[in-house]
């Protein structure tokens, strides 16, 4: 019966696809997944299957991690024998709501450019015998379909695993079913809300701003949304406790936090809502209706303003201001970028970071994450200290430049791997001598130029003012030394010009690399500031870091020295390493 139902659905879908409207919906769904824009570059095109898997992973992982909390045997070992599962699950329920909003919102931000039909769609579809209204509705159906698909995909695993984990403490199957249904309603609606909230923001900006202003501001607004989403995720550790403490009417900050509405909805459906949560639950459905209505209206206006007029926009000649030679550029050329290769490629890297949408987006996301973690550290520093001076010497405050520099260095190293218009890299292949080993020094200069100035300009004066110049000099020296050493480690065997090489394939050791990043973060941004906090009182203790620094300096130096010439040659193709290579002796 199920197979015949699936077959019937498949047949209906195939029939729908065969009609022009269905084909357009299919096309728009594919283009949203595979990327819009006029570029043919590979960019971050990961394919539909991999994107859906990546989106589903966070919910799955978090559910599995909760086994530790809800495992009956472990609870028994902890002496917790009479546990109310609904009360215990409230913070986790809130976390899943926030997680689903963050992942869905991030997916919508990632595909921001592809949600609206663009010039390529215009040139392909408008000359065909289809009205622009049909194109409008086909894209709208695709957007609605995707909102549903992403909401389902992001939450599918947690909708099964989380209720299973929580229900494991209960003997009644009905508990599992009811918990699963309520959880599914809460997280799916939260996902849909997040998708439409991002979509309505995009539509509103397109409707209000002129096209050029929209394009210029787009990456920054997306970065802001990503920071907001990461911040929202960080609230998950504090909000459930704060909600429990609220007595009387809900304060404004709770009313303005959509994640609380959906928690309220879940608790109301469980029949366990406090008056505050009941009040909040009433906002969930009207909230979704409102963002969907705004999204629809803004989409219609934006479509009319931008898509229907694309032909006119492309004909208008843009007024471009002549580039100016900046003094900073001249100074950099004289002091740091002494070869023509360094000067030319440094400008290429800088302009790509500033102008390429995907690179700006990743950079903004990394910067946003760094800011969120730093603000959290700053808040912890003030919370645990009595005075400003005491707070400044706490491990939390000392960790801020370490957190920022670690994430920016790692972020930049990752961004260097993302290609931009691979078809255009022929110019580098033609002009650069492959045996010229200047890419690694260039990448190091770029990273350090982007990291060191603000470390010196902010950390040194701030600590000089608060703790005296000796402490400031020691702290700044340590941060700078660590940043330089980390940069060296990150650039071991780096032999490509940033952005000109194909995207590296997922390798088996990628998980090890990921774990190394986490481990590195602990050493770099947690253990070092802790040690520094205790050592700043007796500065001589800082000398014990010298051997560590010497080892960290020597290893990359040794590896670089012992690399054979062929492995130092500049590459433009990231070909996968073959585990087994056929010799083809019979050929």
């Amino acid at each position, binding site marked *: 019966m199920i197979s015949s139902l699936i077959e019937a659905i498949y047949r209906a879908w195939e029939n729908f696809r*065969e*009609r*022009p409207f269905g*084909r*357009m919906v299919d*096309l728009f769904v*594919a*283009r949203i997944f*595979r990327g819009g824009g*006029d570029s*043919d570059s*590979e960019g971050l*095109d990961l394919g539909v299957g991999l994107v859906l898997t990546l989106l589903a992973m966070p919910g799955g992982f978090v559910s599995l991690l909760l086994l530790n909390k809800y495992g009956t045997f472990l609870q028994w070992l902890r002496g917790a024998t009479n546990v109310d599962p609904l009360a215990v699950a409230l913070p986790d329920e809130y976390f899943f709501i926030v997680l689903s909003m963050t992942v869905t919102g991030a997916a919508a931000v990632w595909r921001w450019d592809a949600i609206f039909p663009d*010039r*390529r769609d*215009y*040139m*392909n*579809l*408008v*000359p*065909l*015998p*289809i*009205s622009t209204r049909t194109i409008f509705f086909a894209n709208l159906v695709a957007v609605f379909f995707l909102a549903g698909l992403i909401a389902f995909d992001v939450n599918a695993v947690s909708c099964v695993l989380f209720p299973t984990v929580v229900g494991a403490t209960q003997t009644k199957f009905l508990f599992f079913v009811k918990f699963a249904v309520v959880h599914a309603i809460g997280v799916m609606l939260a996902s849909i809300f997040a998708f439409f909230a991002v979509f309505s923001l995009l539509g509103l900006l397109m409707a209000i701003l002129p096209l050029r202003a929209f394009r210029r501001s787009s990456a920054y607004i997306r970065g802001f949304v990503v920071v907001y989403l990461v911040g929202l995720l960080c609230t998950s550790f504090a909000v459930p406790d704060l909600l429990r403490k609220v007595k009387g009417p809900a304060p404004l900050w709770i009313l303005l936090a959509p994640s609380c509405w959906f928690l309220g909805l879940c608790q109301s459906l469980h029949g366990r809502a406090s008056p505050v949560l009941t009040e909040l639950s009433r906002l969930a459905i009207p909230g979704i209706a409102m963002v969907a209505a705004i999204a629809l209206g803004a989409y219609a206006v934006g479509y009319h303003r931008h898509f229907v007029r694309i*032909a*006119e926009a492309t*004909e*208008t000649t843009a007024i471009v201001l002549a580039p100016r030679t900046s003094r900073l550029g001249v100074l950099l050329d004289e002091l740091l970028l002494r070869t023509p290769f360094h000067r030319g490629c440094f400008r290429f890297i800088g302009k790509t970071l500033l102008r390429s949408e995907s690179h700006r987006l990743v950079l903004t996301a990394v910067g946003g994450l760094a800011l969120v973690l730093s603000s959290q550290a700053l808040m912890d520093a003030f919370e645990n200290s009595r005075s400003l001076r005491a707070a400044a010497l706490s491990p939390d405050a000392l960790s801020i430049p370490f957190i920022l520099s670690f994430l920016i260095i790692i972020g930049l190293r990752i961004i260097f791997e993302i290609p931009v218009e691979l078809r255009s890299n022929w110019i580098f292949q033609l002009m650069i001598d492959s045996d010229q080993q200047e890419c690694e020094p260039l990448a190091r200069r770029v990273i350090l130029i982007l990291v060191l100035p603000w470390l010196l300009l902010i950390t040194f004066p701030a600590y000089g003012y608060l703790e005296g110049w000796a402490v400031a000099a020691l702290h700044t020296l340590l941060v700078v030394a660590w940043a330089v050493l980390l940069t060296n480690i990150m650039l071991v065997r780096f032999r490509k010009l940033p952005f000109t090489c194909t995207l590296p394939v997922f390798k088996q050791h990628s998980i090890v690399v990921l774990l190394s990043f986490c481990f590195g973060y602990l050493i770099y941004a947690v253990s070092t500031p802790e040690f520094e906090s205790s050592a700043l009182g007796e500065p001589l203790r800082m000398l014990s870091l010298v051997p560590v620094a010497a080892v960290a300096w020597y290893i990359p130096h040794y590896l670089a020295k012992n690399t054979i010439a062929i492995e130092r040659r500049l590459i433009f193709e990231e070909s996968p390493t073959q585990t087994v290579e056929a010799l083809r002796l019979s050929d």
Partner: protein
Amino acid sequence: MLEAVHLTKRYSSLPAVQDLSFSLRPGQVLGCLGPNGSGKSTTVKMLTGLLQPTRGTVQFDGHNIQDGLAAYRKRLGYVPEEAHLYPYLSGWEYLELIGTLRGMPRNDLAKKIDTLLELFSLHPNRHASIGSYSKGMRQRILLIAAIMDNPDIFIFDEPLSGLDVTSALIFKNLVQTLGQQGKLVFYCSHVLEVVEKVCSDVLILRKGIVIAQDSVTNIGQILGQSLENTFLHLVDDVDTMNVARDIVTVMKAA
């Protein structure tokens, strides 16, 4: 018959095309020539209905095309200047998409696509993604997409861009054959020899204004010169030899 009646297009207050009128009869192959910025692309976009004229109309069989754009476009095959294709679709998938959107009968579609891909030497690459195609291959895909529904009007905007010699020759013969079969062909190009060879009539634009419109033979006879010299005489105020000499001088400068 396709008619442009006093077509004018302004961007803000900047005129791109001014008071352009011409007609295109069945069997006629009208070439459109002009230097960069002369209004060729704007004219093409108004003829396809992508742009609405500020003043004037485009009429097909006596009706304003804006009154029934979908019906008009069903009878139109268009090759744009730039090949904006979906790189993640294969050539076959792209053509199948266009065929479906044009409402072509499904049972004939696959066969027709295969045959056309074979004739344009793209059959071996039909399942490769367009992203991996060369410029010439993309151009051939655009050409197939334009002709596959057997339309009555053809508008070609720089159709030979990137094509190899054989494909270009096939295409030139195709344009002449289409003209002989009573189709309407509007052919925009920079390549004067091609226009001279395949077009029966020519329209020369300069700064959005028609400066000459006649049959290819008549235009040449007026000045007793080849089309290239006539074009230069009519359009360009630039002494091309002098400019070439100046370029070499700048190249040699330190």
